[in-house]
């Protein structure tokens, strides 16, 4: 295998300090809502109180008469201005920024008040009176599959994903997308199997809970509109607003700020369509700042039901697996169809299985819309396949780790969906985590109130493909560099990683490369910051731009020295001629070249990936993704049989990251994702009653606190370099969350002999299972 060889070796693999860390700790970093912009009016939203109803009338007279109110705007008002363009969304153009004719979930925005203060806007929004004609709602994902009550009259694919256009106009269904994978003979193999396990699994919807709340400001600027928003997807938002307002791209500017966490919550269309529509239509500057309760309504993680089975032959080799997956996407599809396919294709796990059948469906219900969430739907299917494969090992009386190890995909193996494995060392991840927790060592199991167990799980995920990244690099005359990319740093450390990649190529030291915050007027197009794609995609664009810069410098130096370019090498000390042994620093070289101080040398590069769309009949593709993520988690835990509380004593997580550009940041990503996964295993869930979220505050929504942290966490970096990754690197943001919940559940199975199929594993659920002897 060939991997890019670092010339200078000054940056990649180093534990550089996180860019902006000091400002964050000192509270000096400015997030979007802290950025100074022109004075804006405040917007408050009146939200629907019905899960499914026609809007019979909206009385805004009292609201309009409230002191300080500039305008009260309904969906009908905006529809009169924008027509069907009011419907936005990445997969389906199905979501209006204010409800038109119908509401489809409790809390849907129905009208907006523009006022001179937040208080006036809020008071006026409370004065809006809406009369509804109730329609039958559908809350349960399986009931929605059956039909009867339909959330949408017909499907409306957007222009973003061309492969969905055949669904346009389809009626009388809540299933907006279906992915099917068929290879081999799953049914026949099951009949011939020596051991078969089956199960019905459920992952509840959850919320992202980033610390920074969603925020968008928008204002007209002559014939243009400017937007400042907390978003992971500035390039997407610009296109979406161009479509919404029917403006050319160059009349829309979307600026970002560093995000205070997101995890998928600030992607695609969130507050931006409403803010932009109000600002443009009413020609006023506005800001929309979501409260915490409103943030819970903006987007959620898909709840998912999985019915699956796995079977092995007498030798302990997996021979068949199937999965019927139903993703609850809520009232609007968002990116649910993509989640349905990308997760469906690996719904039977990272195993070499010849006979596979998967049916994965994305289903509308009358709940808040579900969208992207760290893991992109994969943790939900991993919950099922890693529980099943564990139970299969138990049935065979075999060590669960050894059983997995024998069946895991290896380098070059073609997975069930038809794409070969590369740079995805599942066995190394499995071995690393089991070794870390002392898998084969003695375990004090306990025989009184506390019982102990150990569990392991493995995860696989495909990187988002195809996508596009661009980078523009300005090398300043003084030898510092300014990097322009539209990747958004939201805590994952992309500003640090990208700086290290550029610095590695150009032999620059720590702090010499600064990354410019995304601004569509300034920074070049980037598909999105999501799906752990940035290190690979944007990183490659940065690497290419830096290599172009290196080539330009060596060319300039060759002229300076009067030697061939091949004789010049860029080093941390400057450019050196091997023939003459003369050295010139970057500052002197550029000063001599331009004859001025403060000049810049600019290069740019783009990096795109392509894929082969899956076959519509079989769901298979020889190149469905650019690369794979491989990860594993192992847990040793104790269960309090008196209370049902689970205490994780040691958690080890490993991810194959190809090459760790910054090992410290990789370890932090592995640890952060593991803790979030621990929350999903033990606490997190959105609770609904008749479509109403009843725990949508931080008083009620349980997250892991510092007291719930494992006694010990071991993040482990596995490096199996990718042949085209920047210095062999891939992403890592999602890797550790994927196998976390089943690893915990498998340890519970080991501790108390009970297989859980529904998350989260709350003390109540565990205690009830202990009393009944079954989950």
């Amino acid at each position, binding site marked *: 295998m060939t991997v890019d060889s670092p010339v200078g070796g000054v940056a990649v693999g180093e534990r550089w300090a996180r860019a902006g860390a000091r400002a964050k700790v000192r509270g000096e970093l400015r997030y979007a809502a802290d950025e100074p912009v022109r004075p804006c009016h405040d917007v408050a939203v*009146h*939200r629907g*109180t*019905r*899960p499914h109803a026609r809007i019979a009338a909206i009385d805004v007279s009292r609201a309009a008469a409230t002191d300080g109110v500039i305008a009260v705007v309904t969906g009908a008002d905006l529809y009169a201005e924008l027509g069907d363009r009011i419907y936005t969304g990445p997969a389906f153009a199905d979501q209006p920024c204010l409800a038109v004719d119908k509401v489809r979930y*409790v*809390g849907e925005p129905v009208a907006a008040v523009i006022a001179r203060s937040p208080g006036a806007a809020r008071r006026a929004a*409370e*004065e*809006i*009176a*809406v009369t509804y004609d*109730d329609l039958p709602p559908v809350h349960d994902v399986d009931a929605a599959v059956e039909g009867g009550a339909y959330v949408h009259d017909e499907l409306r694919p957007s222009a973003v994903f061309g492969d969905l256009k055949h669904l346009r106009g389809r009626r009388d269904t809540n299933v907006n997308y279906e992915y099917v994978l068929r290879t081999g003979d799953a049914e026949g193999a099951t009949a011939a199997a020596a051991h078969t396990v089956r199960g019905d699994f459920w992952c509840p919807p959850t919320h992202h809970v980033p610390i920074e709340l969603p925020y968008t400001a928008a204002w007209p600027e002559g014939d243009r509109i400017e937007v400042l928003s907390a978003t992971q997807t500035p390039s997407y938002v610009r296109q979406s607003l161009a479509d919404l307002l029917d403006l050319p791209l160059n009349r829309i500017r979307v600026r970002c700020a560093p995000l205070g966490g997101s995890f998928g919550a600030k992607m695609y269309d969130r507050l931006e369509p409403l803010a932009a529509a109000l600002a443009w239509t009413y020609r006023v500057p506005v800001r929309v700042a979501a409260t915490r*309760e409103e943030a819970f309504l903006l987007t959620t993680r898909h709840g998912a039901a999985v019915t699956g089975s796995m079977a092995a032959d007498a030798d302990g080799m997996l021979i068949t697996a199937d999965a019927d997956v139903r993703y609850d996407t809520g009232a609007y599809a968002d990116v649910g169809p993509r989640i349905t396919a990308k997760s469906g294709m690996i719904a039977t796990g990272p195993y070499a299985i010849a006979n596979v059948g998967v049916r994965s469906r994305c289903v509308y219900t009358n709940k808040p819309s579900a969208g992207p969430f760290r893991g992109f739907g994969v943790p939900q299917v991993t919950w099922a396949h890693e529980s099943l494969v564990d139970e299969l090992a138990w049935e065979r009386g075999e060590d669960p780790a050894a059983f997995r190890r024998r069946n895991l995909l290896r380098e070059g193996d073609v997975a069930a969906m038809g794409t070969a494995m590369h740079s995805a060392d599942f066995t190394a991840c499995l071995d690393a985590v089991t070794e870390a927790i002392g898998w084969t060592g003695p375990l004090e199991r306990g025989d009184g109130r506390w019982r102990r167990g150990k569990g392991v799980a493995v995860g696989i995920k495909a990187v988002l493909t195809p996508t596009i990244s661009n980078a523009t690099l300005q090398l300043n005359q003084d030898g510092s560099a300014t990097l322009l990319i539209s990747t958004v740093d939201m805590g994952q450390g992309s500003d640090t990683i990208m700086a290290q990649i550029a610095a590695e190529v150009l032999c620059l030291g720590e702090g010499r490369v600064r990354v410019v915050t995304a601004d569509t007027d300034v920074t070049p197009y980037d598909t999105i910051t999501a799906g752990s794609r940035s290190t690979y995609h944007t990183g490659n664009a940065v690497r290419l731009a830096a290599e172009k810069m290196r080539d330009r410098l060596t060319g300039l130096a060759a002229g300076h020295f009067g030697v061939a370019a091949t004789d010049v090498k860029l080093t941390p000390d400057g450019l050196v001629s091997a023939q003459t042994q003369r050295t010139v620093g970057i500052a002197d070289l550029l000063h001599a070249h331009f004859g001025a101080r403060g000049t810049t040398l600019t290069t740019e590069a783009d990096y795109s990936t392509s894929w082969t769309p899956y076959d519509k009949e079989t769901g298979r593709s020889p190149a469905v993704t650019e690369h794979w993520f491989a990860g594993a988690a192992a847990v040793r835990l104790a269960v309090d049989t008196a209370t049902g509380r689970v205490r994780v004593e040691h958690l080890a997580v490993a991810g194959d990251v190809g090459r760790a550009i910054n090992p410290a940041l990789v370890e932090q990503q592995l640890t952060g994702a593991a803790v979030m996964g621990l929350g999903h295993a033990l606490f997190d869930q959105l*609770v609904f*009653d*008749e*479509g*109403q*979220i*009843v*725990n*949508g*505050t931080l008083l*009620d929504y349980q997250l892991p606190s510092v007291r719930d942290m494992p006694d010990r966490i071991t993040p482990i970096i596995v490096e199996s370099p990718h042949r085209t990754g920047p210095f062999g690197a891939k992403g890592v943001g999602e890797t550790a969350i994927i196998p976390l919940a089943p690893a915990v559940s498998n340890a519970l199975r080991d501790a108390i002999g009970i297989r859980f199929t529904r998350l989260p594993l709350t003390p109540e659920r565990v205690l009830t299972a202990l009393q009944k002897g079954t989950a």
Partner: protein
Amino acid sequence: MNLGSSFVIPADASRVFDAFLDPDAMRASVPGCTELERIDDTHYRGRLVNEIAHVRFSAGFTAEITEVREPEEVRAVLKGEDHRLGSSIKIDATLSVRPEGAGSEVSYRMDVALWGKIGRLGESIVRRRSTEVERQFVAAFTRICTGQPPDEPGTARTERPSFWRRLLAVLRGKSA
């Protein structure tokens, strides 16, 4: 959310049953019911002013009697809305009355859908409040059914402001 309970009223079943369909009796019994009028044989209209946790609401509501089996059971659908709070409620209620010794046992089952701000308070808070409301209702309804003078209409809930309201009143220098 499903709520249900039973209680005993020291009056015969037919009297109890009639009182349930009498808007004046119900207005005096239901805590916070400030208005209640019969529109026709099966439809009622009213207003409920009450408080759950820290949230005070004033909801106009309608009730439709969907089934009556005198003097044993009545089924009704109630819908209410507080526009200011952005909250609405829908209740499918079944109420049964059967003789119990010298009195009557009243059982009710309610399938309650609460949406908006009040709904977001969560089931545990609403359930706890409903227990308090039931206690107040039974006391007032017993007075009605046993011929004692009722409280003033709409005052059944207002026997004592909450701790926080009393504290606020003290801080503002008003009498609690």
